[in-house]
């Protein structure tokens, strides 16, 4: 029989954690909401104490926890030794817990009764009130809050079969990761306070959490507002994760009628521009849930869209943004005036109350007091905190819509090329390649195909979306690589991103630079703490051997014919020495050759006579197609046909 900590409380020796916070010296239990695991803690050797009590073993770990400090006047974040046990065996063990030689805390005694109630599907309401903080003290992934007793008990109940609220296999809930399920439950509970700001870092799945909320609340109608560049993405994700929901697109000139058909349970999908112009019409509907995606679009409280959003009525108001919002008071106020009206009071007054201490003097104490007011209503989790759950590399396809200008040019390009036929032989090969290049340039930006000198914004779906994504990445203090195969595209990106995102020179590494100039760019990006946050690279110039692990995001602005070349480029960031998750964003313009090529690569589409091997579909393969076959491949598909 090993000496276990059941006796430790009697000894003089102090059992403490790394930062000197005292353990209670008796066994405690808490539920770790965002991990969906029970944690046994409270003593220096919880595994030994569990063994002595004859309880199921689990995974030994160091658990981030909130604990009273030595003075017992404040609760601080610390780490304690703990054993994690999956919900099912933990509930079974707790519900049959019998007093043993091991001293236990009140949290364990109450969880034992809760476990019994969950197993017999009985109400837990009164028990929730009895659960002491020790029973839900696991630090949230945001690092600044703990989940309430009610939230922890509900999450525990959800996580086991027979708990009355169990998610059925194959459902959207079942597809979510535990931290996402916690996010969804938090958003639903936020209705009691108006709503909340879901500020998870890019790549953690804000959209799918939002969709899960919409799917869980069948009452409807719901309203989703996003930038034009994301409308297609939302439609796809809704169809993929919640096919049962009817989606009404409230965009375009004939939108007026569609609002009348917004039935209970349906989702109306629209853009910030439409909200600006149709504030009154949208404010007439009693929405169940409103989701504002990329909510930094309303960060200026005086902007028309922000005013219009504040005037909308809904039972649950959700703002989603990947940009940190807490330290910019005007932006914070604007978002929270939408999600939690009244929480911060009037804007001028809010500034008077907090601006000097938080913005001018950067007082940590004042910032913390502000956080105590807003923290319950903002959920921000970082990839690094979720990391154990995330793979080293995340790949995301970002589907963008064509603008009107792009679609006109694209169709005209096809008409011109096919009017007289593409000919045959060497001549045909040249014409096909020229056509493909022109269409790809139009997808990148109309200015590349037909220079007009007009401002670049609002003319290319991919460019607008890229600027939005990079703004979020840069605001989060991360760095990104942007790959393109065209020199002109790279130059256009450098100009636009300088003007719209960084405010400083955005370097472009291409084949025309001297070896020393390239070396200098790489060193500044990789090693200089004040270096540029974005580096644009020509796909061909960025050959082997480059080490750019400072970047945690890779953006492929245009598609290459051979996926292996794209992978090679992505590996500049995702390689040995990279300690963070790398997110690979591949942009493609829907209803164009970019989408067709992606479908060929993914095996979702087949062409007679063309084999799609590891090297993908080559341009030379396309020159072998007949005119009709080629045109069918390149022609913009009717929306929704595929």
């Amino acid at each position, binding site marked *: 029989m090993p000496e276990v900590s059941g006796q430790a409380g009697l000894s003089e020796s102090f059992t403490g954690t790394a930062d000197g916070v005292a353990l*209670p*010296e*008796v066994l*405690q239990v808490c539920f770790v909401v965002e991990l969906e695991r029970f944690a046994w803690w*409270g003593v220096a050797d919880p595994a030994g104490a569990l063994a002595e009590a004859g309880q199921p073993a689990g995974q030994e770990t160091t658990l981030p926890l*909130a*604990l009273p*400090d030595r003075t*017992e*006047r*404040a*609760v*601080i*974040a610390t780490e304690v030794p703990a054993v994690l046990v999956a919900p099912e065996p933990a509930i079974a063990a707790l519900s049959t817990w019998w007093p043993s030689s091991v001293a236990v*805390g*009140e*949290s364990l005694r109450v969880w034992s009764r809760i476990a019994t109630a969950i197993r017999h599907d009985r109400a837990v309401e009164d028990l929730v009130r009895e659960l*002491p*903080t*020790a029973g839900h*003290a696991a630090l949230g992934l*945001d690092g*600044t*809050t*703990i*989940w*309430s007793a*009610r*939230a922890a008990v509900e999450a525990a109940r959800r996580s086991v079969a027979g708990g009355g609220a169990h998610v059925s296999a194959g459902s959207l809930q079942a597809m979510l990761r535990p931290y996402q399920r916690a996010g969804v*439950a*938090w958003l639903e*509970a*936020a209705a009691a*306070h108006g709503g909340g700001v879901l500020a998870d870092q890019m790549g953690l799945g804000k959209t799918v959490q939002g969709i899960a909320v919409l799917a869980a609340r069948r009452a409807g109608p719901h309203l989703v507002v996003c930038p034009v560049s994301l409308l297609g993405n939302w439609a796809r994700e809704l169809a993929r994760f919640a096919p049962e929901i009817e989606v009404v697109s409230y965009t375009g000139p004939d939108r007026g009628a569609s609002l009348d058909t917004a039935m209970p349970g349906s989702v109306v999908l629209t853009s910030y521009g439409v909200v600006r112009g149709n504030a009154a019409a949208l404010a007439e509907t009693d929405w169940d849930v409103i989701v504002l995606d990329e909510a930094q679009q309303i960060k200026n409280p005086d902007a028309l869209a922000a005013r219009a959003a504040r005037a909308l009525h809904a039972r649950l108001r959700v703002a989603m943004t990947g940009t940190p919002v807490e330290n910019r008071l005007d932006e914070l106020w604007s978002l929270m005036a939408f999600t*939690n009206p*009244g*929480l*911060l*009071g*009037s804007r001028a*007054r*809010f500034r*008077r*109350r907090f601006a*000097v*201490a938080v913005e001018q*003097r950067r007082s*940590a*104490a*004042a910032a*913390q*007091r*502000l*956080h*105590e*007011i807003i*923290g*319950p*209503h903002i*959920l921000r989790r970082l990839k690094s905190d979720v990391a154990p759950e995330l793979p080293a590399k995340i790949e995301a396809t970002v589907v963008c819509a064509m603008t009107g200008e792009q679609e006109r040019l694209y169709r005209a390009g096809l008409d011109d090329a096919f009017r007289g036929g593409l000919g045959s032989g060497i001549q045909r090969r040249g014409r096909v390649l020229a056509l493909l290049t022109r269409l790809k340039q139009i997808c990148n930006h109309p200015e590349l195909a037909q220079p007009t000198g007009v401002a670049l914004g609002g003319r290319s779906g991919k460019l607008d979306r890229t600027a939005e994504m990079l703004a979020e990445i840069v605001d989060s203090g991360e760095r990104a690589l942007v790959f393109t195969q065209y020199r002109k595209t790279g130059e256009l990106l450098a100009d636009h991103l300088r003007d719209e995102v960084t405010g400083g020179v955005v370097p472009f590494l291409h084949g025309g630079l001297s070896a020393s100039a390239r070396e200098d760019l790489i060193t500044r990006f990789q090693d200089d703490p004040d270096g540029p946050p974005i580096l644009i690279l020509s796909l061909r110039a960025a050959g082997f051997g480059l080490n750019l692990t400072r970047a945690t995001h890779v953006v492929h602005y245009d598609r290459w014919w051979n996926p292996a070349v794209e992978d090679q480029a992505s590996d500049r960031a995702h390689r040995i020495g990279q300690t963070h998750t790398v997110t690979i964003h591949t942009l493609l313009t829907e209803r164009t050759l970019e989408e067709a090529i992606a479908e060929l690569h993914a095996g979702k589409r087949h062409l007679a006579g063309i084999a799609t091997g590891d090297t993908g579909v080559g341009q030379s393969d396309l020159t072998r197609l007949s005119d009709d076959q080629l045109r069918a491949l390149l022609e913009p598909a009717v929306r929704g046909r595929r």
Partner: protein
Amino acid sequence: MSGEFGATAWGHDWLRLAEPTSITRPDPALPRARSLARGDRVRDLELTPGQVTAVVDDRGERRVRITVPTWDDAQVGRARVVLADQPAGADLPDTVHAALRDAGLPLAPDPATLTTTCGCTSRKDPCLHLLATYVELARRLDERPRHAVVLRGLTDSGTPRGTARVPLGLVDPATFYGPSRVR
């Protein structure tokens, strides 16, 4: 009014204790008191019905305690009526401050009914640390006006309850392991 402290009517009540308008010459210790508050050297400020305690870091820890009279049951009842229409939130508009005053509910601290103690040996009244605590309290009430009514006895009016996530600063260490401090 500089606006840094006492920007709302709730906070201004306490700033006036440090800077009484009836006195033409400001207290020479005031700039130093402001500086202590500005530098976050008034810490561990705890506000409960009838009492404020704080620690001021000024060549050692100076423990300050201020007590104010709480409202009686009838007054608490009238206050609830005034506050009934207010949305849950941290802020309370200055109009509510005026409405409470009009309902015969004193919020402003009256030097005649206040008791104060400080761990320092200064004979000056108020001492530097008390002044600094007044200034800090003005800021805290600017930030959370509802604490002004908590101080007068409306205990359930402070922090909004029932959120699914709780910031660490709002977790009560006294009941962490259970109601009776049992572990």
